[in-house]
């Protein structure tokens, strides 16, 4: 085939807006055409097709692996023919999960929810792509350059010196440089079973501290499979326990509930979750969503994956930075005044309630309880991250690298939900506990 072009250049044809068609032939040479709901970009030399039914196309490729696809660019109407050769079928893992999530969106968008179900990802080698001569429409002018935005964002992240700055910079730049209005950064806990929100953008309630289980929704699947998960149309298959969340929000998130409501959009049409990795370790997930369909395409996925990879590398860098600076001079701290605030601690899950309102639990809850006890017993207000690592009752997992993330979570949660207590950074690896009212501490069994 002449005029061969690179698969990377025609990925807009692979978003499922216009179904592609595939021609195959059986052993006797009888041709067949099928319409494809999904042609998934893997890398410049491979695509994967969704295997949903044991149909004629499937029988044919098992007998004769050669096939030709015809694709249409949904914006320019440019058409392409792609010659491919069937290699294998994957029924689990990152590729399968990426395709399954995207197919769920395509299915509900095309009225095929319940009909389309992914049985496997058929992997094909791309042998050649030709442009089909024909009329085209002018390509629309983009309102931003993703490559320029990615470069700028990565440069700014590289200049950050601690985790808090990295998290703030990430969400600020997602809005300023990428025009993303709703986003979150979640960190993986050391046990590996859950992710907790440490930064968010654009939600009515920040949801700092809310948790997602590994494998739950696009965020949980992206974390479990360590791969980008992207949905271009609304689908209930990947919704986050919405009913529970809504009722919790209506109730004001108060009462004895020990869950912080997940902040996500009520009706997201586009979602993109990319894992944050460093040195092969899962650090967390960068997540963006939009009420608009088709908001995130392959290039957006590349952009956010690049941002996430710099974010992961920089988190790794700031973790290696020198520990605490010398303790600052004792600042003049105002004496707590007014009626005592009642703090309850439940040892079973380290949950802490302030005046009967749930505040926090888990490692962040244990840290808070240790701090307020130090304050009560020794009138201490100045602390270092290092002593938290050494405090036996905080029960940080072995070799925990996420203490800083827990402190950020605790600090933000206090700012949002507690008028009595505040954490202030006083230097690298150091912070101050500010207590506004006297505290009455009570340990519950």
């Amino acid at each position, binding site marked *: 085939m002449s005029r061969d072009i690179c698969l990377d250049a025609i990925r807009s044809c692979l978003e499922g807006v216009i179904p592609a068609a595939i*021609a195959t*032939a059986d052993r006797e*040479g009888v*041709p*067949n*055409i099928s319409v494809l709901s999904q042609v998934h970009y893997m890398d410049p030399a491979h695509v994967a097709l969704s295997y949903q*039914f044991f149909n004629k196309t499937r029988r044919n490729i098992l007998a004769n692996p050669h096939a030709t696809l015809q694709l249409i660019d949904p914006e320019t109407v440019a058409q392409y023919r792609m010659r491919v050769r069937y290699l294998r079928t994957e029924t689990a893992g990152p590729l399968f999960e990426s395709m399954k999530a995207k197919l769920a969106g395509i299915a509900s968008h095309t009225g095929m929810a319940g009909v389309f179900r992914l049985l496997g990802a058929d992997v094909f080698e791309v042998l050649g792509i030709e442009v089909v001569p*024909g009329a085209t429409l002018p390509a629309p002018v983009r309102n931003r350059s993703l490559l320029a935005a990615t470069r700028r964002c990565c440069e700014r992240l590289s200049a950050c010196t601690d985790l808090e700055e990295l998290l703030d910079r990430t969400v600020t730049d997602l809005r300023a440089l990428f025009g993303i209005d709703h986003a979150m950064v979640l960190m993986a806990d050391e046990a590996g079973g859950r992710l907790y929100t440490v930064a968010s953008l654009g939600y009515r309630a920040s949801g700092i501290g809310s948790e997602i289980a590994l494998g739950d929704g696009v965020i949980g699947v992206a974390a479990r499979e360590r791969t980008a998960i992207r949905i271009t149309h609304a689908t209930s298959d990947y919704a986050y326990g919405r009913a529970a969340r809504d009722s919790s929000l209506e109730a004001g998130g108060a009462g004895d509930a020990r869950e912080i409501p997940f902040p996500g959009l009520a009706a997201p049409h586009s979602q993109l979750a990319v894992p944050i990795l460093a040195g092969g370790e899962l650090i967390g997930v960068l997540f963006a969503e939009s009420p608009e369909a088709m908001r995130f395409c392959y290039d957006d996925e590349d952009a956010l994956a690049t941002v996430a990879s710099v974010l992961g590398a920089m988190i790794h860098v700031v973790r290696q930075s020198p520990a605490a600076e010398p303790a600052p001079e004792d600042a003049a701290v105002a004496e707590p005044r007014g009626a005592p605030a009642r703090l309850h601690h439940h040892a079973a899950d380290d949950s802490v309630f302030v005046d009967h309102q749930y505040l926090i639990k888990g490692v962040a809850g244990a840290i808070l309880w240790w701090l307020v006890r130090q304050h009560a017993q020794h009138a201490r207000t100045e602390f270092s991250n290092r002593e938290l690592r050494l405090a036996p009752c905080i029960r940080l997992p072995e070799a925990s690298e996420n203490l800083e993330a827990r402190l950020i979570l605790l600090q933000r949660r206090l700012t949002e939900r507690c008028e009595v207590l505040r954490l202030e950074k006083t230097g690298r690896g150091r912070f101050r506990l500010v207590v506004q009212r006297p505290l009455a501490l009570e340990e519950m069994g």
Partner: protein
Amino acid sequence: MVERTRSLSPALTAFLEGDVSLMLASRDAAGWPTLGRVLACDVSSDGGRLTVYLARTPNAALVAAVAETGQAALVVTKPSTHHSIQLKGRDAAVAPAGEGAAPVVAHHVTGFTRDVGLIGFSTAFSRTLMAHDPRDLAAVTFTPEAAFDQTPGPRAGDPVEP
């Protein structure tokens, strides 16, 4: 292949000549399958032969494969409903499109534009997709020997009564 059909039913003929999207596939002598977009479909008055019109230049390999092997698979889809039928023949022959092709093509392009308009595609989009040089049309004629349900779902590929 199921048994050779006598003629296409009036219902199937009406579907083929209605507001549909058409793709044709064949394979060359070496066994490589290829495909291309078809501009219109015309059923003979006795219902026994099908002629499809397509632009020759953008579909040069497909037209050559049909001429080489006579193999043809035609998929007819109504985009707004996903209803889809596939027809197959093995006596396909290529000829220049005659005088009668232009109005058939014009009728079909209008129908196609109407149907994809129902699912949100602009007239500019469908007119561009169907744009062609009228002097570049080829006609592929074949006897449909078998018909298959191609509507997405577990029954796709099942033989249907032509």
